[in-house]
């Protein structure tokens, strides 16, 4: 059933050992850990932003379209999260699944946790009949660009345009 991701996964460690990773839907109780993880990675505290996202993405009425999944380790430490939403007809696009955010704790990189999160989100999208996932990454963000390319994403048919309003 869409919107009910609950999976016990294992992530591969560099020494070929594996650690147990639980992928589950986020709850408002995850708010502090999500804010802290994002702040650790971006250097900016966005408490209001993530509180708003969590409220909107954990609304059961929207569980087919909106997904906020978290990855936690065996000791229940939140080590990553992914946010995705199915949107239709913006920019003329047929329905597709947007990956709005994906973060993994710097101490838990290179274990495949990002792949597990993206896979879990893709399962939700596919269950809703979505055939394409899409995201947007800063052109100089080599780490995230190469991650998504490694997951099979490549340049799509749209080009982002912007203008400074001086």
């Amino acid at each position, binding site marked *: 059933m869409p919107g009910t991701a609950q999976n016990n996964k294992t992530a591969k460690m560099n020494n070929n050992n594996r650690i147990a990773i639980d992928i589950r839907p986020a709850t408002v109780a995850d708010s502090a850990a999500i804010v802290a993880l994002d702040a650790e990675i971006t250097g900016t505290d966005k408490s209001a932003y993530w509180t708003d996202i969590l409220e909107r993405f954990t609304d059961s009425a929207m569980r087919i379209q909106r997904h906020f999944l978290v990855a936690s380790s065996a000791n229940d430490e939140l080590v990553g999260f992914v946010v995705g939403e199915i949107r239709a007809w913006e920019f003329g696009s047929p329905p597709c699944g947007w990956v709005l955010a994906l973060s993994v704790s710097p101490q838990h990189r290179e274990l495949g946790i990002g792949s597990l999160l993206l896979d879990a989100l893709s399962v939700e999208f596919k269950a809703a009949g979505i055939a394409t996932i899409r995201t947007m990454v800063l*052109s*100089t963000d*080599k780490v995230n*660009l*190469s991650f998504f*390319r*490694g997951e099979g994403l490549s*340049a799509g048919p749209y080009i982002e345009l912007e203008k400074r309003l001086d």
Partner: protein
Amino acid sequence: MKLQKASRYALYAVLHLASAPDRQHSTAEIAQEYGISIHHLAKVMRTLVRSGLIESVRGVGGGYRFAGNVRRTTLWDVIHEFESLESDIDSPDALAGTAEIVISGLDSVNSEIDGLIRSTLDSITLKTLLRYGVENLERGV
């Protein structure tokens, strides 16, 4: 975009070595495999060794071995050892009037294109590129 010969040969060599990091290949083997000049490739290999992307292995059966990380090294990491890929409009230094407007406009377009090319090449790791090749062949592309 047209890569210089040295960049193309470097990509052939690095990707070939990266496809089997535990194995070593001689310049002659790689040159023969891709049908390219062994003399030109030998110069390219020396630059790649200096850059740390590959290492030479001495002794019987010696040759070269990939020395980087296939999940981290990007196409740009290889290419920029040989060229900057920055477009250059060959124009006089002192321009005025319409000529200055035209050249300035073309410079901004070139800059946008250069940024896209650089971003694309710097986001594709050797591992991803090799996977593209396998998938293309499996799909018959």
